């Protein structure tokens, strides 16, 4: 098995051409650095929370330890859910698996190979899991930390085994579409849970000076040997937990190899059926309907649309603040719009010959692709304004922000499309390939900075009351936004010219 796996990984990692190898290395380096930065930030935040909660004690210990055991258990469950849904998606039959199945390779090697490939993108989830561990170990003795660290390492391996078993099971019963929807739902819940667990819950405990009843009652279980998700960290206090973990690792490991060797890589179910073309009146806006169908058929795009809105609304309601909500939605929305156009344009990759063959005006083709995400996001933004006005109250003057945000979003849409046209993904079958590129992340940064300097100052100027901000500062803020807007317009024109040049070179 190890021979098969090493050959597969060698083929994957070393057989790529030097450019893509370099790109992959850069992306991986960026991801690792990002994860470390993120780990540092949330660990620091959690450490403060942990120290504050540890002061509050009761007969069986302190609130800090209960809280940490609770969130480690909770995020272990989320780790399993995320990893298993993502990995089962990778275990669906594709061209690569089809090819590998023709070779004398054990199925468990193919599954493990896919596990390693999809596991890289799970680094961020691992960071969220490790942050409370670091905070928890901060005030412990060296022997506790040594045994606890070994326990945590074993726990991570156990989580990977459990996730992989779930993935093997899931991939045999769920279609690719269901798995994609599942991944989106889990990610959305994860984002909400992250805010609740890391911000709202500790705040509420500190304010009331007491733990919620449910958490208090469940404490016995959280810190017991029956909670396989927290026995790793508690191995510092009770080293015999390491023996339990070893037994579990062997059991789940064997189960994993047994199940993965028996996995039937399934393809999407095909509905056969004869049916004549439906009687319907001739419809106009064929390109628009095609674009909307792309959105309907690709859950990823739906996720890109609703994630910033959902996240922003949640932030707005939790903080009872319109500004937080609007800022989150507009900034995140811009980033996600560029991802939408890049993704949607990548989807055209394999079928671009069809567009060239048909009597389609390429200007219409580009316009539809650029405007659909902007219009959808504009409509959602209007709905958000309406909702927040109902529950929080919004100053009518803030409606001025709508066109400003739309201009920024149009620039984001242009940049997403220009990126895919300039650097078409090597694997057209994977419309997500653009995400692996470091230059796309660089572009992300540009959009982030531009949207911030454009939306943030004017938002402060409009949303703050006249009493708190002097007219001079107000004028200055509006001036900065205008400058940002000016840069965005210049950049948009340049992006539009690049797109036109690229697309019209087709014919």
């Amino acid at each position, binding site marked *: 098995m190890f021979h098969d796996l090493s050959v597969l990984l060698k083929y994957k990692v070393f057989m790529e051409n030097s450019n893509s190898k370099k790109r992959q290395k850069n992306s991986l380096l960026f991801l690792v650095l990002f994860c470390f930065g993120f780990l540092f930030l949330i660990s620091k935040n959690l450490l403060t929370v942990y120290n504050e909660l540890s002061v509050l004690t009761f007969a069986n210990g302190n609130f800090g330890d209960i809280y940490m055991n609770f969130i480690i258990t909770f995020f272990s469950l989320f780790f399993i859910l995320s990893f298993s849904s993502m990995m089962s998606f990778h275990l669906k039959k594709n061209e690569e698996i089809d090819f590998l199945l023709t070779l004398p390779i054990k199925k468990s090697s193919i599954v493990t190979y896919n596990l390693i490939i999809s596991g890289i993108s799970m680094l961020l989830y691992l960071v969220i899991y490790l942050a409370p561990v670091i905070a928890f170990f901060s005030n412990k003795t060296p022997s506790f930390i040594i045994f606890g660290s070994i326990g945590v390492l074993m726990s991570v391996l156990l989580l990977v085994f459990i996730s992989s078993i779930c993935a093997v099971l899931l991939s045999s019963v769920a279609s690719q579409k269901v798995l994609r929807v599942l991944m989106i739902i889990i990610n959305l819940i994860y984002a909400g849970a992250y805010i609740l667990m890391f911000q709202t819950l500790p705040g509420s405990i500190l304010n009331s000076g007491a733990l919620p009843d449910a958490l208090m009652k469940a404490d016995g279980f959280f810190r017991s040997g029956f909670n396989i998700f927290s026995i790793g960290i508690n191995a510092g206090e009770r080293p015999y937990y390491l023996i339990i973990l070893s037994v579990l690792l062997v059991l789940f490991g064997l189960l994993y190899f047994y199940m993965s060797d028996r996995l039937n890589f399934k*393809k*999407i179910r*095909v*509905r*056969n*059926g*004869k*049916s*004549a*073309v*439906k*009687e*319907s*009146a*001739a*419809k*106009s806006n*064929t390109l628009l*309907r*095609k674009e909307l*169908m*792309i959105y309907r*058929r*690709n859950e990823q795009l739906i996720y890109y649309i609703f994630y910033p809105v959902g996240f922003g609304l949640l932030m707005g309601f939790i903080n009872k603040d319109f500004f937080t909500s609007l800022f989150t939605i507009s900034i995140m929305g811009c980033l996600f719009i560029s991802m939408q156009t890049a993704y949607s344009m990548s*989807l055209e990759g*394999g*079928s*671009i*010959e*069809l567009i*060239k*063959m*048909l*009597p*389609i*005006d390429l200007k219409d083709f580009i316009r539809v692709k650029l405007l659909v995400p902007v219009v959808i996001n504009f409509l959602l933004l209007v709905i958000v304004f309406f909702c927040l006005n109902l529950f929080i109250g919004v100053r009518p003057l803030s409606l001025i922000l709508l066109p400003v945000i739309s201009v920024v979003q149009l620039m984001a849409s242009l940049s997403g499309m220009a990126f895919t046209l300039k650097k078409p993904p090597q694997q057209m079958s994977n419309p997500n390939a653009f995400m692996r590129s470091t230059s796309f992340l660089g572009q992300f940064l540009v959009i982030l900075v531009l949207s911030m300097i454009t939306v943030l100052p004017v938002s402060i100027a409009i949303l703050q009351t006249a009493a708190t901000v002097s007219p001079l500062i107000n004028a200055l803020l509006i001036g900065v936004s205008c400058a940002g807007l000016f840069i965005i317009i210049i950049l948009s024109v340049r992006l539009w010219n690049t797109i036109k040049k690229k697309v019209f*070179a*087709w*014919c």
Partner: protein
Amino acid sequence: MIKCVNLTKKYNTKVAVDNLSLDIGTGLIYGFLGTNGAGKTTTIKMLTGQLPITSGEAEIAGMNVMRNPVEVKRQIGIVPDEPKIYPFFTGNEFIQFILDLFKMNNSVTRKDFNELCEAFDIDFLNVPISDMSHGMRQKLMVTSVLMRKPRIIFLDEPTVGLDARSSRIIKDLLKKRAHEGATIFLTTHVLEIAEKMCDRIGILHNGVLLTEGTMEELREKRNMDDSTSLEDLFLALTDQAEDVQNIVNAL
């Protein structure tokens, strides 16, 4: 109907098609033959406005291809060598898309389409295109073109991946369409098909048109007798006959 003068395509220094001139009249089936990489697909792409022309002129149904690419595409039908269709469509949705795009969503075209479905045994219209085999996609592509009854049809290796029955139907149907006045421009590596179907044949080699005419004219030009097959003629013209013999002997 299809006319080009000194059509040339260059990729940097490499000349893919060199000074190609053709004049194909109405109601003809024109077979465009050549070795792999000879420039057949490039020629089709230039003639149909899919690829910019480096130099020369191309006219389809009296319209300049470079000046009116969209209008040209509206008048013609193209069956590419690889049926690359949107994978997120089902067969039905793809046909609706084509009907709407060509503004032909009328009962006559729909009836023609349903008849073609019967003929090609297309019973997979509800299947997503991503799940279709090459043959299924090819049938769908051919049907989407033939249902519109275009005046000019370009086909790049139309029978690849098709079963014998469907292949025969396409060949007969193309003959029928040509008889009704359509101009057919097709490339194929199956020389028997070209010999049986085509009214005129052009042979392209390394981007250069070696010869062009009816079978009789081609034989006459090479001083070959009436029993000479197109295959022998093709190999002789492309200087491959001796090469083939040597390889077989060596094996």
